[in-house]
């Protein structure tokens, strides 16, 4: 029917059938031309925000480990749990706990812990590469959530609300810091062909201007939607030229109509992006050493693609993207990548194989280029996993105390913060909630979390709602 090659055939195809596909609606929403909407809208002068105070970090890289990494198997060793492993588990009913104690037994760590680095913090054998970087990490062991459900927790982690419809932290950062490069979005999600629970809401600009929505970059195939011209470059040029003439004429008729002029410029930006974005996503110009450091040359396609996204993250960071998020691939039909109610040993090992090396490589690469001090790296899932189990090779949802880490961007490395109780059940020393993490992230970017607001529904809305305290103890 179409006289032309459809630009959308031969695009991303999956080797595996997945329970969720990668929505591409709005994928590119964030790839806005800076002046476009502003000129058109005459909206609040929101595009070029300034930080509130000078601060170490200029950007954030967020490594989202969705599904929930087991804290007691990675960064939070519990000798007492190991000792009682196999014994019936008993605890006080907790509203944040999904499981009930009947028939549950304690399950000690499946991996051995060793002290690592100069700081001597323990890391399990699951993460040998991250263990190597432990002196850069601040391991927070006392994060708490609200509801032991993936969707709710994921939204809480991303937007500060467990019920839908609030902007993502990436959108807030993009809005709060303004763009460093006007041809690039402020917030990019380097996706691994799997949309985490909570769906697109996780990456949405919600009530913030559309320009701050995440631009989604796929791992396999064409990285960005509609970025590939449907026709040969010469034809595309001719079409754009014709369009420019036509719109120019229309603009002239309308007098000084800013609307049409910004529409014309919008097409020019789109045209520039057609080259810029694919270039940034192309890592073939990186040295062999760099590619191997990340593991882009590994055999398995999940391994390869995750490494590719980590390397792209560094390139995007250099190019001026403010908030870069990397999601995990879901290797098989599972609710989410790290969600191991069963098959814990095998699947946690697999996820670690995919992510550990590239994550550590990203830290090392940033450090070696002198970028780590100005790049805040956050490694977090939306929950931890229960220290107890209904079997011997699985753990369930856990939000009463779990572990994340932060590195770079003015965060102290080689330290741990907060504690869970001796079984790894509840945060008992310095419990934090996600709002505290958000407040701290913004603080490191020079943004006061109580002053970063947007008027919506008659209220000055904040990422941290009415909560949040900067965790001063972990700042360097």
């Amino acid at each position, binding site marked *: 029917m*179409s*006289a*032309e090659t*459809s*630009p*959308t*055939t031969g*695009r*991303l195809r999956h080797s595996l059938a997945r329970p969720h*596909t990668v*929505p*591409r*609606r*709005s994928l*590119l929403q*964030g790839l*806005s*031309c800076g002046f476009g*909407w502003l000129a*058109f809208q*005459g909206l609040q002068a929101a595009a070029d925000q300034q930080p509130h105070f000078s601060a170490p970090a200029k950007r954030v890289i967020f490594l989202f480990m969705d599904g929930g990494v087991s804290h007691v198997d990675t960064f939070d060793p519990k000798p007492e749990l190991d000792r009682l492993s196999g014994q019936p588990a008993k605890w006080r*009913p907790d509203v944040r706990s999904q499981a*009930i104690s009947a028939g549950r037994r304690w399950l000690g760590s499946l991996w051995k812990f060793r002290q690592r680095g100069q700081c001597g913090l323990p890391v399990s054998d699951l993460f040998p590469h991250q263990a190597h970087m432990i002196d850069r990490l601040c391991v927070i062991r006392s994060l708490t959530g609200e509801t*032991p*459900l993936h969707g*709710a927790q994921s939204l809480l982690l991303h937007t500060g609300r467990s019920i*839908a*419809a609030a902007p993502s932290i990436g959108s807030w950062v993009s809005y709060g810091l303004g763009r460093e490069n006007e041809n690039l979005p402020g917030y990019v999600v380097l996706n691994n062909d799997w949309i985490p*629970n909570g*769906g*697109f*809401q996780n990456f949405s600009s*919600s009530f913030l201007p*559309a320009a701050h929505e995440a631009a989604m970059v796929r791992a396999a195939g064409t990285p960005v*939607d*509609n*970025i590939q*011209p*449907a*026709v040969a470059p010469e*034809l595309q040029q*001719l*079409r754009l030229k014709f*369009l420019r*003439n*036509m*719109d120019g*004429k*229309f603009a002239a008729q*309308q*007098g*000084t*109509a800013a*609307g049409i002029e910004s*529409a014309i410029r*919008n*097409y020019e*930006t789109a045209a520039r992006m057609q080259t810029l974005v694919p270039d940034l996503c192309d890592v073939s110009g990186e040295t062999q050493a760099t590619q191997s450091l990340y593991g882009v040359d590994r055999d398995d396609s999940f391994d390869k693609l995750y490494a590719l996204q980590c390397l792209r993250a560094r390139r995007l960071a250099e190019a001026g993207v403010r908030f870069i998020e990397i999601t995990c691939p879901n290797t098989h039909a599972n609710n989410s990548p790290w969600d191991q109610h069963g098959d814990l040993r095998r699947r946690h090992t697999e996820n670690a194989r995919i992510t550990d090396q590239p994550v550590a490589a990203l830290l090392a690469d940033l450090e070696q280029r002198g970028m780590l001090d100005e790049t805040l790296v956050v490694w977090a899932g939306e929950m931890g996993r229960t220290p107890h189990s209904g079997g011997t090779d699985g753990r369930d949802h856990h939000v009463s105390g779990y572990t994340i880490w932060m590195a770079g961007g003015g965060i102290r490395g080689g330290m741990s913060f907060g504690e869970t109780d001796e079984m790894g059940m509840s945060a008992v020393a310095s419990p934090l909630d996600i709002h505290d993490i958000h407040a701290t992230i913004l603080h490191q970017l020079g943004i006061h979390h109580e002053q970063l607001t947007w008027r919506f529904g*008659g*209220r000055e809305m904040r990422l941290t709602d009415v909560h949040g305290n900067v965790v001063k103890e972990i700042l360097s």
Partner: protein
Amino acid sequence: MTAKLVPRRIFTTKSPTLKPLVNLLRLLCLTTAAMAAAADDGRYFQQEIGPLFQRHCMECHDRETHEGGLNLQDQITRGGDSGPVIVPGHADQSLLFELVSHAEMPPPESGQLDAAEIEKLQTWISAGAALPNGQTFPSVTADRIQALLLLRCAVCHGATRQEGGLDLRTTESILRGGKSGPAAVPGNPDESLLLQKIASGEMAPARRLVEVSIKPITDAETALLTDWIAAGMPAPVADRSRENSDSEYTATEQSFWAFQTPQQAPPPSVNTTARVQTPIDKFVLQRLEQVGLSLAEPAPPDVLVRRLYIDLTGLPPTWDQLQDVLQDPADDRISKLIDRLLESPHYGVRWGRYWLDAAGYADSEGAQNEDRVRPRMWRYRDYVIRSFNSDKPYDRFLQEQLAGDELAPWQDGVEIDAATADNLVATGFLRLTPDRTFANITAFVPDRLEVIADEMQVLGSAVMGLTVGCARCHNHKFDPISQADYYKLSAIFKDAFDEHDWLKSQGERTLAVVSTAERKQWEQQKQTLESRLAELQAQQQQADEETRKSLQQQIDAAKGAIPPEPQIRALWSRGRPSPTWVLLRGNYLTPGKRVQPDVPTIFAERYPLPQIAPPWQGAESTGRRLAFARWLTSDQHPLTARVMVNRIWMHHFGRGLVDTPANFGVTGSPPSHPLLLDWLAVEFVRSGWSIKSLHRLILNSAVWQQSSAVSQQSQELDPAGLLLSRAPLRRLDAESLRDSLLFVSGALSEQMYGPADPLDVRADGLVTVRATGDQWRRSIFAMMRRTQIPSLLETFDYPQMGPNCLQRSESTVAPQALQLLNGGEVHRLSARLAAVVLQDCQQSMPLTDDADLRKQRIIAVCRRCLSRQPGKQELHLFLQGLQELANQWRQTGETAERAEQLAFANLCHAILNSASFVMVE
């Protein structure tokens, strides 16, 4: 006496080295000090607390100021507007302590309490908050306990179920007890079964908590319950004087423009009388003349016709439709066109959509990953479209949506006529918000309160133009809406939105109530199919093996063809509302003052709520919502008409007279033309709340009919167009753009109504609407799942319903350009457009590069897409473009004919990308 000195010295210790010791001593001293404080009959208060209040609080809370209704000088025991501020023995339950310890009071600028002072407060409250001069705080009463038991126990021992024969909702029923005897013994906590069961952990049963979405009782709550029983289970002290009373509002607050009934001022006289077509023009011209401006020239007729079509139907006119008007010599040809378009079924599609935005329409629950579909929600969407098409009076429209179940009897097997069925479908308005309460783990009381809060926000923003949601946790910071007002308002909805008596969001909110006619039709259809099925089954029993198999196929088909019972998603009164308490700081764990259903105080005096009464004899309904709907739609109501008039205006001009359509309060934008707003509001009510009359009034004005071209003068003196010195130049909204693309390429289906069109989600995430045959229906009929918005719509600012959308953004972002430029959908449509254009100008393949034929084609595509002929220069531009494109295709090795065809498709594609197509002058 020494005991009292100890804490004072310790608490003021600043030395950091002593900190651990201090902490330890604090624990010890709290008890000692507490004992002392309790024993001293108010001396601790006199020595420590009174002076502390004096230092920090009295500026705003003495008997003169008593902000928030709180007078700490001599009425501390009465508490404030939201309820008691001190609960003796329970610092954690005391609002005053909570605000002070969270540094929310006193306000930061007036100096806050230091740690030692906070400790003192805690000490005093924990020890029983003794007051001097024999004053006492009311002890914990049945009022507080009722709230507690409703929250923790009543799901199994309340309205729906009385397990063990026990109902814990009232003091009487607690004393009556269940199968094991009375649940409590007044004055004797130890012998009270209720407390024994809680202490032993038997109640509430841990295994069943999630199943009924209940969280376990806290230790503090158990202590409260124990105190109450120990005190002899006292009833609440009647203080009717304070029930529903609030702070008094100042004269300024009371006389705020938006709280006065609109009055119609005569239209002003103006100089440019020649331009006056309606009274609207005079109001606008007056402002313009004040700054030395006038209206822009009238828009050329072809521009005006296109603008009208798109404004009223969301589609451009066909060339023939345009010519019909242009060739009509009558003076009133535009007025006649307005009338015609208002009768078009497409009018309801276009304008119903605006209401769906305001109401927050979606075909799914949202809020959780599954984003479950609401399979019957489309009936509400159809109801809205039909209501707009039939010009249902707005007052009736609101009454149906807020209280349709209370307008006419529908239960007990009465005959349901079409109007009654509509009443119930209309209540879907109150079932639209994101709602995760379909699963046990996400249906706890706070989850339910979120749903109610969202509904309140929709009501406030879409109908009342007030940010009532701000008063959920505290008195409104700017508008005279107290926290109690918020809960009074939510009490009106309590018989349907009861957080302690909840219907889950999937299944339970469904009624099999449709018009008797529809039901009969369904029954007949079902019967026919079932008897056919029975026949087939009978045949099968007697048939041989081979025939059996083929019959089985027919049987399966017949089974599948039996239509499901027609059902609707609705809201209805359940007739047994729980009481409503102000929730201190919006927290469901700290209920404050009990309130009765009512409208906010600022209205209550001048515009009181009509009497609440069951709508008919024997009705299960309380009639609360009906009374409220009647109050809202009274001719005198200060906001309802203004808010709607402003919304209609906003959709015609791109900006409301009040630029904050959801907020007519103090922080909203003041109206740009206040007299015009009021004039229109009064006209609207006078016309019988007819929305179509309002459209006629606006569309016939010279203001609406002026050109969008920007003159130098207009640019300088009215840069943003606020004064309406020109018509706005607007981009098509998401639906109009998609529908127009489909329409001009001959791919738009005329079929309306019914279940939503399913979506296709491609492996890479592209969301498209499934075609019906080789056509698509208008976008409003597509499935609008919150997590799967058709890509084309989403890129062009289809809003997130969070919970609703009063004003879509109109962004210009690169993904839009990329989508139109490179996206597959638009490419396919432009190829289709090229084909229909050739039909239009009676040309067929193969195409040639003959200049005249090319001109014909170009003229035809301009007529079809842009509702105009290209000018001479423009035609030259097109011809040149076509030539260049064809040359390029030739260079890639295409034949001349094929190059011509591809070049023309490219041209069509460019036109669909052009500002002339995407924008409306």
